[in-house]
Each structure stands twice: as structure tokens, then as C-alpha cells.
């Protein structure tokens, strides 16, 4: 059987591999969860997806021969999240439509102004960005990844990382300036 893409791996692992996995990969669990949380915009979904991604990473771990473990793991987490987003896209669109239909009230501009530069406001603004902008900002600003690591994790050319970050930051600035941020687009 030929793989759809070239990805070498094996889930034949011995106890030594298990110990290596716990030592090298598990310390990046926070990074995995954080990326999933921001891509999926839900802690519960992030928990399920991070769990699935870690198990997947474990299966491929035998084929992992050194290099940047965090970038390797985050690449798997990202793929798992995008699969999830693709699968749940229609359901999400429907939820969004319902929210609009029923006019769920957001915080008023006054409330936002009073709360000022707070966590909710930043969270809403970041969540309003399309995933491809959101992920580079999360990787750069929260995870402290280099452009090279971001390129590895997101499979975009390194030359495109800078322009994607630039556009993402611009959108984030606009979303923060906008008193009533719109819901995120689910376009991948």
C-alpha cells in the first residue's frame, strides 16, 4: 500500500519508545492543547482533539528520528484540528446562523470600554480571525515559535510566514478597534 503522502511511521513501539515518548513528546502537551484550543475555539473540543493527536503522534513516534519535537507534534495537532474543522464545518455554520437569528447579545461597547484591555476582548478578537491567521499569531505570540518552526508546523513556505503574520496582525488590530467583532469565518 502506498501512502497518500510520504509519511513514514510505525505503531510498533516497545517500552523504550514509550519512555522516550513520555520524556520527549509529553512535555509539549501544553503547546498541543493551546494550539488546539485556539484553532477549535473550545476547551472541550481541544481536549478531545489533543488526545487524538497525541495518540496519533505516539503511533508515528517510531518513525520520528530526531529534530524539533515540538514542531513535529504541533504539525500533527494542526492536521488533526483541520480534519475536525472540516468535519464539523457544516454544524458550526448552522450554530452561527442560529446565533445571528436569535440575536445573542454580545457585551455592549460601554461594557467593553469599561473592561478595557482585558482577556475577553483579546479572546474574542483573536477568535474572530480566520484559522490560518489565528494559527500563526498563536504560534508566534503565545508559543514563541520562529518563522522556520511556523513554516514547518503549518506547511506554508517560510517566505509566506511573514506576510501571513502581517495580515493576521492587521486583522487582529482591526478586530480590537471594532467594538462589535464579527464571528469568525470558517473558511480554512
Amino acid at each position, binding site marked *: 500500500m502506498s*501512502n497518500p503522502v510520504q509519511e513514514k511511521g510505525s*505503531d510498533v513501539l516497545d517500552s523504550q519508545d514509550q519512555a522516550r515518548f513520555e520524556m520527549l513528546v509529553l512535555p509539549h502537551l501544553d503547546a498541543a492543547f493551546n494550539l488546539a484550543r485556539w484553532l477549535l475555539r473550545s476547551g472541550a473540543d481541544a481536549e478531545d482533539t489533543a488526545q487524538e493527536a497525541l495518540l496519533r503522534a505516539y503511533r508515528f513516534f517510531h518513525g520520528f528520528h530526531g529534530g524539533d519535537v515540538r514542531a513535529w507534534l504541533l504539525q500533527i495537532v494542526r492536521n488533526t484540528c483541520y480534519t475536525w474543522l472540516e468535519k464539523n464545518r457544516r454544524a458550526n455554520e448552522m450554530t452561527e446562523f442560529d446565533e445571528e437569528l436569535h440575536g445573542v447579545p454580545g457585551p455592549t461597547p460601554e461594557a467593553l470600554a469599561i473592561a478595557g484591555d482585558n482577556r475577553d476582548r483579546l479572546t474574542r478578537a483573536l477568535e474572530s480571525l480566520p484559522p490560518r491567521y489565528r494559527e500563526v499569531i498563536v504560534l508566534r505570540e503565545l508559543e514563541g515559535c520562529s518563522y522556520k518552526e511556523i513554516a514547518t508546523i503549518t506547511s506554508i513556505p517560510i517566505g509566506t510566514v511573514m506576510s501571513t503574520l502581517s495580515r493576521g496582525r492587521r486583522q487582529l488590530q482591526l478586530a480590537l478597534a471594532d467594538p462589535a467583532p464579527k464571528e469568525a469565518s470558517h473558511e480554512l
Partner: protein
Amino acid sequence: MSCDRADTVLHAYFDNEMDSLGAAEFERHLEQCVECAGALAALKDLRSSVNRAQLYQKAPALLRKKILVDVAAARPIEIAPARATWQWLAIAAVVLLFISVGWQVASVHRGEDSNAVLAAELVDAHLRSLQPGHLSDVVSTDQHTVKPWFDGKLDFAPPVRDFAEQGFPLQGGRLDVIHGRTIAALVYGRRKHLVNVFIWPTTERDASPRTGSRQGYQWINWRQGGMEFCAVSDTSSSDLEQLQRLFRD
């Protein structure tokens, strides 16, 4: 007037991604360019707002425990003993025969490994598809509805055919992502069972079917006309072989 550097290299400078020469050159530019200086100040503001908001979300403690349980429960797959045999054969071949024979065995062994991983992925995909609402993106027993649905969603055209008369009614289709690549999945019924037929393009030449089983599910894999097929189901492997022949004819 806008400076195009404010949208480009300014970010590389801000992120410390420039070499020292480039950074020094850009700093000279910054002294003259109001636009870039303003944009840099705004980026610093943005970063400090983000930092103050403490947006980093740490994993719940329970998640680590769940993963440790998963990892402990993950069993070596069925080919594990076969793999050991192959290794012994490889060693014996190298000792007794020529190095080239050893290479051949090694390449067979590598193929077995990635086959097993792919079979595991496809069985997982089959299991995922059985969860409520996951089976089909397009529900139709009509191949002329299912086939056009894939148009524009894939960079290849999967062969969509209904085999209702032969006992495999087409039930629908969906997209699946395996190893980051989007592939087609066709759903067929077989008595009370469901069969997922995963299809993706390949550059390798046609290959006759190979079968296997994993976690109580049967799979059959073959290549034909530039497409690779893998059917997965809990129905019998003879059913899957019958379905494979229908695709071939």
C-alpha cells in the same frame, strides 16, 4: 503615503528574524520613515496587550493522565511478529547471500511498516465515519448525484458506481483526510454492514488485491488505473473481495 516595508520586513525586524546587517539597515530606515515607526509602535502595543491578557491555555491535568492511559493501552499491531521474522530473514540473507538481497528484504520490510500504519489510519477513519452524522457528506443512492458532488472538492475524479444489483447499494460519499491529504470515501451497504471505500490517486502501477484485518475489521487494498483503493468493513473478507471484483470489471 504608505511604506510597503511596514507590511513586510517590519514584521521580520519586530520578530528578530533579521540578520544583524539587515536589522541595522532597517533601523536607519526607521529613523526616516514615520509610517514604519508608527507601525512598529502599534505592533509593540499589540504584543503587550496579548501578553497582559495571558491567553495561553494550558492542558488540563486530566488530559495528561488520559494520554498516558491511551499510550499504555496502544498495542503493537498484528504485523509485529512478521516484522521480527523479516528482520531475521534480512540478517540471514545478508550473511548467507549477497548484500543486494539484504537490500531487497529491507525494502519489503519498510513497505510492510507503512502499510500497517496506513491500514491503521483507514480503520480509524472507518470507525470515525460510524459516529453519528459522520458517515456521508452527500447522501444518495444515485451515482450521478454522488459523482458530481466530488467535483471541485478533490484534485482527482474518483470512480463512483452503484452496485445495488450486485448486493452493494451505494449510500453516499464524503471527503476524508488521511495523513493531511484529502481523499474520497464512498459508502456502500452490505446486508446490515457498511463498507467504506477510500480512494486516492497514485503514480504506482496496478496491483492485485491484498487483504488484512485489524481490530476486527477487514480491509482490502488494490491499485487500478492510477487510483489506489482500500475498502474497510466489519463484513467478511469474501464480501470485500467481491466488491473489489465489481470495481475491477
